[in-house]
């Protein structure tokens, strides 16, 4: 399949997310060290300058952007709707957050940016402001005209994609159908080739139940849903291993044979990679026509303006986006 790859000379674009959270802090902190690649940021430049002052770090306004000890960063201005103090949420700024995202998505679709990297947002605030917003992933997918995005978490050493994400546990089993599972597995396999350069990626597929159902004694979804999908997709040429009991899928011996693990639900996959990731876990949206990565943490309102925010996840998200745009 011929797929257009954006001009690699175009930059990656960052969004700072919730202005009262640590998103702006992270950009200021990034600029204190040599920058991890070619990117620009869409935000309110005043917000960055104020936040730098609050933390006590060097940052100055320059032509077209801001500059710190680590270098110069282009800023595409999307202005705050109301003044912002670190840690204080204001629904007035929900529009600012959404405008940054819209700008980044449209820019990626138009090829002006090679990828977008998002800072953390406060979902509840955007909803409180009257916008329907279930999350970055869904918002971006909708603007790309995609119905089924897939969330994947990754470190340099490990990747975990999720069949279901922010669902109550009681609804997980019933929402996994042969159709949704097959669609997710196809997307993961396709995007592992497209963005990560695998010729024939090997996907480990977790079971849903304890011991992967133990031949139907501990649940029947493996037999009724997962096995048939695996058989069908294998016949289409996908390399699938499973259904794997979830508690052995993530052992080092098993992981050595897999390029990505597909977990059935949020808490089956996330704790593992967070445990392995040491703050360098990147959230990636698969199934999109564009590259989108994100930090894996929240807005940490209590740390905003303190200078104590940990910048490793954003650094990793930028590195990952860059790597994906090169398809390796």
């Amino acid at each position: 399949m011929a797929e257009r790859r954006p001009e690699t000379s175009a930059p990656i674009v960052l969004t700072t997310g919730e202005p009262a959270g640590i998103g702006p802090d992270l950009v200021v902190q990034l600029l204190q060290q040599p920058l991890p690649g070619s990117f620009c940021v869409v935000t309110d430049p005043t917000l960055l300058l104020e936040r730098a002052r609050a933390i006590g770090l060097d940052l100055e306004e320059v032509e077209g952007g801001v500059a710190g000890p680590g270098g110069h960063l282009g800023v595409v201005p999307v202005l705050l709707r109301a003044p912002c103090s670190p840690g204080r949420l204001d629904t007035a700024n929900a529009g600012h957050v959404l405008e940054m995202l819209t700008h980044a998505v449209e820019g990626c679709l138009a090829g002006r940016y090679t990828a977008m990297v998002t800072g953390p947002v406060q979902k509840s605030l955007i909803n409180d402001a009257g916008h329907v917003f279930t999350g970055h992933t869904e918002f971006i997918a909708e603007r790309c005209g995609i119905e089924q995005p897939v969330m994947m978490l990754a470190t340099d050493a490990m990747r975990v994609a999720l069949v279901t994400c922010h669902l109550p546990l009681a609804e997980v089993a019933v929402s996994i159908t042969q159709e949704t599972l097959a669609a997710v597995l196809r997307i993961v396999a396709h995007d592992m080739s497209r963005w990560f350069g695998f010729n024939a990626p090997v996907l480990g597929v977790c079971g849903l139940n304890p011991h992967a159902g133990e031949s139907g004694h501990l649940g029947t979804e493996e037999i009724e849903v997962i096995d048939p999908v695996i058989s069908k997709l294998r016949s289409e040429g996908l390399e699938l291993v499973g259904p794997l009991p979830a508690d052995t899928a993530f052992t080092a011996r098993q992981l050595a044979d897999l390029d990505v693990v597909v977990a059935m639900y949020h808490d089956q996959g996330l704790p593992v990679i967070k445990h392995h990731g040491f703050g360098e876990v990147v959230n990636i949206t698969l199934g999109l026509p564009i590259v989108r990565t994100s930090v894996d943490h929240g807005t940490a309102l209590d740390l905003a303006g303190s200078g104590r925010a940990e910048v490793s996840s954003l650094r990793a998200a930028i590195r990952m986006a860059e790597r994906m745009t090169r398809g390796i």
Partner: protein
Amino acid sequence: MSKGQPFIGIVQGDACGIGPELLPKLLQGLEENEKNRVLVISDRRVLEAGCVVSGLEISCKALHERAAIDPHCGEIQLLDVPCLDPAGIVPGTVSADAGRAVLETFGLAIDLAKAGTVDGICFMPFNKAAMHLAGIGVEDELTWAKARLGVTSRASEFNVIDGMWNARVTSHVPLKDVAGRLTIELIVEAIVLADQTLKRAGYANPRIAVAALNPHAGDGGAIGKEEIDTIAPAVEKAALQEIEVHGPFPSDTLYLKVRDGQYDCALSMYHDQGQIAIKLLGFDQGVSVLGGLPVPITTPAHGTAFDIVGTNTANVRAARNAFRMVVAMAQGRAHRHA
């Protein structure tokens, strides 16, 4: 409340698995004062077969009847239970005969514990399929032991690694049924049992962290209401009984809190929530404790490892840790390095 060296019954395990070869490794590594206080409950021929695989010779006093057991005899004693000729089984396969031998030796150990002859039991890995073929008739060895001991209150398996404990509210339950099973009463019972079991292992004031059920602990009710309706009220109720218990915590941070020493025990809501973390944190060193029984019973957390039987590559570390744990529990002191 520390007592002298307790008298421990060691059960052979499934003879088709790595149990027989672990036995001599375990026995050889014991201190002299421990050897004096050990009763191996096994078919002599099974132990001998294990000695051949491991290349070890174990000197012990063979007994042929319960009445001959001397808790202070000064050497390893073997209660020779003629239940299985290893020549008649195929290593690395599921065998009803091996399952029957497991039930016979384990049942004898339980009876000896009930009679007060042994102070604790450590068993080598069992195979569930073999026990089912042998007609165990209940879900697992814990349920079986519970019935044999006449226990009707809650009993549950605990996993222990490096001083980190894990217990589950529900266990071998299809995922779709987990949420429906959770009640305030059930969770309170599980918290109380965790508190009692860790106290028995010597923790004066066990700190228990309770897991959430839903992603992000339900995110204030946006992703599931069980945290608000069931789990938080259970934690509050248990805390009223002077138990140091907190939560619910999201799965992805719960085990980090236990790992970092803020809590002694995690209480997970369902099987894989706990098992995934427990296996990541050091699977082969882990110990399983059957909690809620009047006598301490432990076993290595790994299984029969059919794929490596007879190769003399089985690692004895978990079995050794299981032995140390049962000794510690029989003495009522903490064993932090299970």
